[in-house]
């Protein structure tokens, strides 16, 4: 299992990733993910797949319809759907 982190550390790491140009619709905070695969199994558009690290990865990001089913069903609060970018 991942090393323990606090909410503050999670925030900081996520902010850092976004600063470095993350712009996919769904964000996975891997240190909190326990690899249950619920998000992958119930994504209605097969946006997610399990990666080699046994964490979900965005295989088909353009198919995401932002339904938030992955976010609502993640038992670890480790995945969320990003807001659409203001253009």
């Amino acid at each position, binding site marked *: 299992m*991942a090393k*323990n982190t606090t909410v503050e550390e999670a*925030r900081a790491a996520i902010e850092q990733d*976004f600063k470095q140009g993350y712009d996919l619709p769904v964000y996975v905070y891997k240190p*909190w993910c*326990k690899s249950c695969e619920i998000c992958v199994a*119930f994504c209605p558009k097969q946006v997610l797949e399990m990666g080699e690290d046994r964490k979900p990865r965005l295989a088909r990001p353009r198919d995401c319809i932002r339904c938030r089913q992955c976010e*609502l*069903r993640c038992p670890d609060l480790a995945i*969320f759907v990003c807001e659409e970018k203001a253009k």
Partner: protein
Amino acid sequence: MKIHPAYEMLRPDKNFPNVWCPGCGHGIVQGAIIRAVQKLGLDRDEMAMVSGIGCSSRMPVYCDFNSLHTAHGRAIAFATGVKLHNPKLHVIVITGDGDALAIGGNHFIHAARRNVEMTVVLMNNMIYGMTGGQYSPTTPIGKRASTAPYGTAERDFDPCSLAKAAGAVFAARGTVYNAAELEKLITQALAKKGFALVEAVSPCPTLYGRLNREGNAVKMMQWQKENTVNVKAAEKLPPEKVRGKIVTGVFHDAETPGYTEIYDRVIAKARGA
């Protein structure tokens, strides 16, 4: 917002990931509670989250509310004290099927009878998870547990029927598969001024799933998806089509003055008002 919306209601200094097993439904319930609180625009300081002992009862540790982690089965008793001391707080009791209905069964029915204003979120995984898979009062008859290798000989409680019969003003059931419905039910419950129960059917893949060969978390969620029927549909179906299924929705919704409201009247009477 570039942060998970729930993070603002988590305790910043607590270690994550949470204590629950991979695929345990309890974290999904936690997410639904936080969204319900946010939807109602409630402040963290207006909330009090009270729990007993068991897997589900670890939740207050992670939520940045006023919180109280108490003795086994006694969450509702402590919550009654919290509510009477400060009726302005929105009191949420976090409990499991063992905590609420076995050791805590009497507190459960009496708080419902008194209609003490609180929202009880009962995570029903149909087993004692923390202590090794013993059967609980909601383990369905014939199902296996570490203490029932040949299947339980006991019938299970319907927590919603029990709460209604005891006097609760609101009783509803949701599943973690349908997390959106669950969130809606918790929102309704939080808005009630009385004893409100939301039973959240939450899989335990580690013990219940393994002992009953129901597969991993995904398979248990898939089962929920395929075997849930809404109460309104269930009422129109013949009983044999409903048997063995999870019936979700609002079973009971009444308006009756809550305990603190009636208690205030007694105080006024005693003061000669």
